[in-house]
């Protein structure tokens, strides 16, 4: 357990020291939201209808930047290997990195909400519920994303490989998160929010345990 704490401190420290990149990733996400509106046209009613979809597409696209960067630091000078040789438990390193990435993606998602509200006039009074959905979605992206970032950081064509492997896998996260967010914005007459939240929770439970089990095979030769 102490390894988890030490690893988490390391990852949060890395994210903190690289906060300039965090701002850059946020700018990328906000730019994506802007570009979506150019693709759709200035009618606010249409934009407001698709606001949830744009928010999550923006977060999904910029998430690969955060995930890929989080492992660039580890493999650049074989720092991760040095930790494994201490020895440090690969599982602790995974969960710490995945947790740190989840928090980073959550912060990114939360920061994109005001952009969504301004650009698409799509607001919701239920802020805590929205933040909860964003946290579940961010965690859902981070669990497999961190593992695939570990793999692709040591492969050729890593920029294309990570999204190629990750996006088909997180289709359920995208569907559930967009539906849940849209219910929060446009109202939830039939009370479907619980079902979509449950699906997000289920996705997280499966992938946080499965990826944790398989991670040491990815980093150990």
């Amino acid at each position, binding site marked *: 357990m102490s390894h988890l704490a030490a690893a988490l*401190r*390391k990852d949060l*420290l*890395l994210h903190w020291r690289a906060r300039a990149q965090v701002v850059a990733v946020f700018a990328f996400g906000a730019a994506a939201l802007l570009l979506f509106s150019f693709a759709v046209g200035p009618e606010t009613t249409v934009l407001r209808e698709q606001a949830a979809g744009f928010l999550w597409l923006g977060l999904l696209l910029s998430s690969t930047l955060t995930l890929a960067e989080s492992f660039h*630091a580890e493999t650049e000078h074989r720092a991760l*290997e*040095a*930790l494994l040789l*201490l*020895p440090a438990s690969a599982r602790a390193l995974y969960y710490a990195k995945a947790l740190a990435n989840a928090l980073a993606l959550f912060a990114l998602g939360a920061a994109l909400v005001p952009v969504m509200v301004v650009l698409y006039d799509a607001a919701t009074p239920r802020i805590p519920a929205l933040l909860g959905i964003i946290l579940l979605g961010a965690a859902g992206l981070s669990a497999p994303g961190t593992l695939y970032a570990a793999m692709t950081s040591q492969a050729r064509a890593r920029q294309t490989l990570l999204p190629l492997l990750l996006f088909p896998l997180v289709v359920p996260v995208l569907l559930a998160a967009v539906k849940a967010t849209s219910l929060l914005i446009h109202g939830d007459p039939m009370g479907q929010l619980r079902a979509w939240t449950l699906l997000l929770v289920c996705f997280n439970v499966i992938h946080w345990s499965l990826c944790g089990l398989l991670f040491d095979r990815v980093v150990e030769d």
Partner: protein
Amino acid sequence: MVTGRNGSGKSTLLRVLATAARADRGTARVAGHDIRDARGEVRRRVALLGHDSGLYDGLSARQNLDVAAGFLGPAAAARVGALLRDFGLADRAGDPVSAFSAGMRKRLALARTLLKDAEVVLLDEPYGELDPPGFRLLDAALDALQARGATVLLATHLLEHGRQGCDSAIVLEEGRLAWSGPARDLREPGAAP
């Protein structure tokens, strides 16, 4: 001591012994433990300084050592300050490693390797990139290790460093053992055996 031309397998040997790389065939015992079956035990007793520094460019010198100490425990954490001073890094402890020169990075990597009280210390080309003061710091550290009774395996081209400090030596060619014997009798790899 291990020596041999570039690409003769020195680094690979050290990485395999440190369980950083997997041996395709055969096995070995380090510090009394098998590198395949008891990897965790080997890793508890072995420290490796490889070609790659194993450092986080984004973190400062002190933070890099603190991170490693976090996994090693309080004993190692207590030695962080001393190691930074011993390797002349105390005044740059707060700067990010990305701003360090190659020599400074090598000193920090050495400090990080010695953070663990390892029974076996594997050093791959430790003299590379070091300036003369760095040489003296490294020799002092090697003497301290020998005084503590640790086993040191040094992979280097600089034969004179090896001859004085080491007891035995082996020469590798194309991944094969070409010669082994007392370090004193070591001649240039090109010279007639």
